[in-house]
């Protein structure tokens, strides 16, 4: 599967550090964040998990203005992910970000979703299935709904037709 990831990277306070992992065993990238990643994965057709891990950020990695508001925050933001040349649309917003809080308050959530901004250290995780095109098509359900119309196509009728023709003489 082709996997293309585009990020916006805030590096004024130094390069954010990233790991990109599939299924907890396949490390695709590990080091300073890049704006673009292009991978060619050889993974079986089954459910998978993509993780983008932001790590190594310290308390010094954001800069405050005179009012105490964050002026610069070391982070990456996911701009796009393409699987087999197909851009993820709403699927991208299904990804969950599990932050590692430096000082976790009770009110802070265990994970944030939808979220594409990786400001805290932590893991952004997206479950997907390969072949990606089939997974995306099944989830998106584009196009007209033909059931109950004269345009319909029924799998059972196709199956019986195959069986019917298979045994007929070739005339």
């Amino acid at each position, binding site marked *: 599967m082709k996997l293309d990831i585009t990020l916006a990277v805030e590096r004024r306070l130094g390069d954010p550090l990233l790991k990109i992992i599939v299924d907890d065993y396949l490390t695709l990238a590990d080091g300073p964040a890049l704006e673009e990643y292009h991978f060619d994965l050889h993974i079986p057709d089954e459910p998978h998990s993509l993780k983008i891990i932001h790590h190594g950020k310290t308390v010094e990695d954001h800069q405050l203005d005179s009012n105490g508001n964050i002026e610069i925050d070391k982070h990456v933001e996911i701009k796009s992910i393409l699987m*087999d*040349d*197909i*851009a993820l649309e709403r699927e991208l917003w299904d990804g969950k970000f599990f932050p590692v809080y430096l000082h976790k308050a009770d009110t802070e959530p265990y994970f944030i979703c939808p979220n594409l901004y990786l400001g805290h250290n932590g893991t952004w995780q997206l479950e997907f299935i390969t072949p990606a*095109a*089939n997974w*995306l*098509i*099944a989830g*998106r359900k*584009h*196009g*007209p709904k*033909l059931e109950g*119309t*004269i*345009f*319909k*196509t*029924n*799998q059972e*009728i*196709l199956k019986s*037709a*195959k069986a*019917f*023709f*298979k045994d*007929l*003489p*070739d*005339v």
Partner: protein
Amino acid sequence: MTRVLILTVPRVAPMRPAAAPAIIKGILNKLDIDNKIFDINLDYFNNFKNSVDPDTFNHVDEYLFVDKKELTKEQLSALHAFIDQWIDKIIQHNPEKLLISVFSWQAQRFTVELLTRLRPQTNIEVIVGGQGLIREENGSYSAIPRFAHYLKNNKLIDHWIRGEAETTVPEIMRGNYDVAGVDTDFLAKYSNIKDHSYMDFTDFDILSYQSGYSDGVLPMETSRGCVRNCVFCDIPTMQGGFRFKTGEQLANEMIHYYEKYNVRSFFFHDALCNGSVKDFRKFNTLLLEYYEKNNLPDRYFKYSSHAIVHSQQQFKPIDFEIMGRAGADTMVIGVESGSDKVRADMRKNYVGADLDYNMAEYSKHKIQVYFLIIVGFPTETREDFELTLKMLKDNQKYVADGTIIGVNLGTTLTIEEGTAMYNEPEKLNIIGINGQRPQGPDWRCIDNPGLTYKERIMRRLEAQEYAVSLGYTFWKGDDQIKVMTDKYQERLRRLAGVIH
């Protein structure tokens, strides 16, 4: 008094009003002749369908288009009751002339049922026209309109119109039946498309169609004929040379329909909308100017159409861009095959790289595409067929992003009268079965002996299974399988004496 009644008869997919009755109505209006359209086809799908149990409707519906289908007494009674109520309405109106639009072969059985019951009850002059005057199922041309002859020989009609209404209907209304196209095997004189009147849809219940658009869809026409000459297509024979409306004429017509019927979605029902690149560009540009002048957003109108695949030299990225902004919604494209060799044999006049360019541009500008594919062209080898499957796979990304909204694989290649394949079968080394002329599905290619009718059907079914597995929305599969099964059984009966 209504002088002329125009009928639409089943079975035509009820997606939008039919153009032919609206064209005739426009012609009659121009002649100041009082007329009315009865949309029996829509009533069949919207009311009759719901007035009987689903099983009865399915049987009746199959009866209309499956050759050997028979109905029980009860099922036939249901159909006749539906027909009789329309006959009552026709007789009540007592028109001078009844014009019946026989849209295709799928409207023939209903036409016969209707006329068999109507004729004993009235002397109203009955005139039929439309593509359904011929018996061919996959073509629009035949040297002899056999269905029209059948109706006339059985005294079910008084006259038929073969070809264009623009040059025949005015003559008939003047009492002149001695004109090309009226009761003749040859076609009516071609009209000048630049002189055509606007269609009149006032008798149609536009919003009751299953168009999928809340404000309905209207048919329009950009051209007659085709710029290309594909070997399996009879349009050049049936419709003559390519004649097209100017970009300005087309834009004005669309704006007229919007202003009169408040419809913003249109379907061009002719062979292609982008045959004259210059006029098509002008049409899109004028729509954009209209939007701007009236403070309307891009894509305020939507239009769908058949379109051909152009190369990047012929159809620039800017053409796709203005097309998308003007409102191009869905383009029906005869991609036909994934093999460049087979496409060349078909005279499709484009290659796979052109299709890739077109698809990327359609996707970029959010224009939907509907694929038409022919399985079992005479020169299609197994390797060529595999390329068609590969083409489906390669374009799966456009299913995922919503560009491709459907695929139609037809019922395997048939050879129809009026096509280059019919006229010159020797060019592809095609022969008929049992010494007959190659026609319909009854042909073989000497150079490709493995491509039997059964093999073509098996490939067709395989392609359907594959397309569905890739997530393509597959159109008309059930109907097409019924037709192929029916045809093959007929062939078995004819050639092998096997009856199922």
